[in-house]
């Protein structure tokens, strides 16, 4: 082997490469070697290798395990805090993660990414199960290969999780929709309610609208609930909601089950001053800045936070503990929350730029003071 500067050798050692590749890289010449190094560096940069130097915390030294997240909308801003959560957990534990899947919910691409992760002998998988049939085979294959699998954010249909994943870590989707409806019923006794959904049938939001519908049915009150499809493209969704509201002047409630539709509901309520025209309740999901502004202004009564950071942090933790204990600590069903954000508690969400909500990249402490709101 040619002489190499010790720092080069040291740098190469920290890259996430296997022994064979590392040897080739050190021995390699010119273009080949530099291309390899460049790709390894990029791969390294993308999710911070955090090779287990010493042991983290009170844990024993482990290999630098690699967990793969397969998401249905990899570049959607909702999942920015999820990726921070996974990254933070990985740094804490000296492991790595990869964020992959499909950009626009193409199930075949997600299946391909899952199969590739299995071939790559990933140490654990976190899957957004947005189709209840398609992932059964891949998950069984992973489990057969000894790779633990959890689902995050979406978990098949309500009656059928669709896969043999060890546990689901995310919001109870049906339950959250049910609560969305129940909360509306506290101020509503009768009338027309519209429920907007960007992509009907998609299993990360459809159960919510089913839940909301059930809540109205269970209440026995004379409320008619109509689910309306908007669009994954927010701009088109806004036009659809706008048109619906113009065509239905007597609406008593406007609900939405996804971030885009919720934001658009807030804007539409403000545009037509629907509060003055008999609208009793408006609410939805997620913490897009526009939605928070609407909550603050009173155009929306509430929005539901599902704490996406935890949907990245907790799967890494669960998979790590499973690996660490040889499977004795089994991943548990985890509800990442059902937190109502209203005019009373919206301020810190609006004023705080933080990594933990995805609005900032900096790692810094968020101070709080005063009593904690309780029932």
């Amino acid at each position: 082997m040619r002489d190499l500067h010790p720092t080069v050798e040291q740098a190469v050692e920290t890259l996430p490469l296997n022994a064979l590749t590392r040897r080739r890289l050190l021995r390699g010449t010119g273009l080949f070697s530099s291309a390899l190094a460049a790709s390894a560096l990029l791969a390294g940069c993308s999710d911070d290798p955090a090779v287990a130097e010493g042991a983290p915390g009170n844990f024993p030294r482990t290999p630098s395990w690699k967990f793969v997240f397969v998401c249905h909308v990899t570049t959607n801003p909702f999942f920015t805090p999820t990726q921070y959560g996974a990254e933070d957990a990985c740094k804490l534990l000296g492991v790595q993660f990869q964020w992959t899947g499909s950009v626009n919910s193409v199930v075949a691409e997600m299946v391909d990414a899952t199969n590739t992760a299995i071939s790559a002998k990933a140490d654990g998988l976190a899957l957004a199960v947005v189709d209840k049939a398609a992932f059964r085979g891949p998950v069984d294959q992973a489990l057969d290969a000894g790779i633990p699998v959890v689902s995050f954010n979406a978990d098949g249909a309500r009656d059928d999780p669709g896969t043999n994943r060890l546990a689901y870590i995310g919001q109870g989707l049906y339950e959250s929709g049910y609560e969305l409806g129940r909360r509306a019923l506290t101020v509503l006794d009768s009338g027309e309610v519209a429920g907007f959904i960007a992509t009907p049938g998609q299993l990360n939001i459809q159960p919510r609208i089913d839940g909301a519908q059930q809540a109205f049915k269970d209440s026995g009150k004379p409320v008619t609930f109509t689910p309306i499809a908007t669009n994954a493209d927010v701009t088109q969704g806004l036009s659809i909601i706008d048109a619906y509201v113009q065509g239905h002047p007597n609406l008593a409630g406007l609900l939405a089950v996804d971030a885009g539709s919720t934001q658009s509901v807030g804007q539409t309520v403000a545009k037509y001053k629907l509060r003055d025209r008999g609208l009793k309740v408006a609410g939805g999901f997620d913490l897009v800045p526009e939605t928070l502004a609407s909550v603050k202004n009173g155009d929306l009564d509430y929005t539901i936070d599902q704490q996406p950071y935890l949907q990245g942090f907790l799967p890494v933790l669960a998979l790590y503990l499973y690996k660490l204990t040889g499977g004795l600590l089994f991943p548990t069903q985890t509800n990442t929350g059902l937190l109502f954000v209203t005019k009373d508690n919206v301020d810190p969400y609006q004023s705080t730029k933080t990594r933990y909500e995805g609005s900032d990249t900096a790692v810094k402490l968020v101070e709080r003071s005063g009593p904690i709101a309780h029932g």
Partner: protein
Amino acid sequence: MSLAVARTPGGAALARRAWDGFVRRREASVLVVAIGLVIYFQAASPLFLTGDNLRNIAQATAPTAIVAVGIVFLLVSGEIDISVGMVAALAPYLMHYAIDFYRVPAVPAILLALAIAAGVGLVNGLITTRLRVPSFVTTLGMFYLLYGVLLTTSKAYPVAVPEPVKGSLQTWLGAGDWASLSWCLLVVAVFHIVLTRTRWGLHTISVGGNPLGATEAGIRVNRVKVGNFMLVSVLGAVAGLMEAFRINSIDPNIGGGTRITFTAIAAAVIGGTALAGGSGTVVGALLGMFVLAMLQNGFNLIGVSANPFFLIQGIAILVSMIANQYLSRLRRTGRS
């Protein structure tokens, strides 16, 4: 364009002529790029050439390569089809409707889906040739029309693969490990021969290369074009059905709208088919798709995350294709 076979023995001369024959082929440059990528990814991850992963690459290559075969014929005859991705998404639903709502047995239901796809191609072709609407616009309209039909009839909800299809039929038609690749290779082989050795292929090339000359030579230009529209639609339906069988779910998002169409067009062009018509190669389209699938799979295997993924994939496509162009120039000038 066949490989030169040396009549006189003599090692060096034989190798020389074989080499000349190879580099004269249109597919040679993209093949070199493909081999280069295999070497690179195998060096970056020793798991690249394992059986499991080759299966992954095959499954990512096959459906789009089948669509690309149809696209090659259509591009060569001087037209384009944007709607084929929607045909791919609609075909599995048509099969599902026929089986689950009208009690049609499995095989006739699949044939029915293919026939309806052919009908879509026929309409595309007739609007383009008879009413003289540019094919880009015709098929864009058809894309939205089919999208609407798909979402309305399916209520945008994924459904399970119908029971009568499950079992060996599903395995043979896409769910088996190598099923989709086998079909893909068969389609490529058949249509390579059709394009290079049959009258239909010759007419397709002349229609795209010189429409006026073709008409004067007595070729029925419109009929050739309509036939190729039907071909691409049927192959689109085949790809959609295969994908549904593979992922074991009928999903409105199969093909990803225009994604499969543009990937297939990219594969065809990377493989050496001219966007302007008149020349093309089916084997090249397969190799082009193979290159695109390898780029996707390889970077995933190495572990590149989603956000930088497109950056790296973009650079990789540009570098590969610049190399491809450079190699093609070498090929054309005969310096090798």
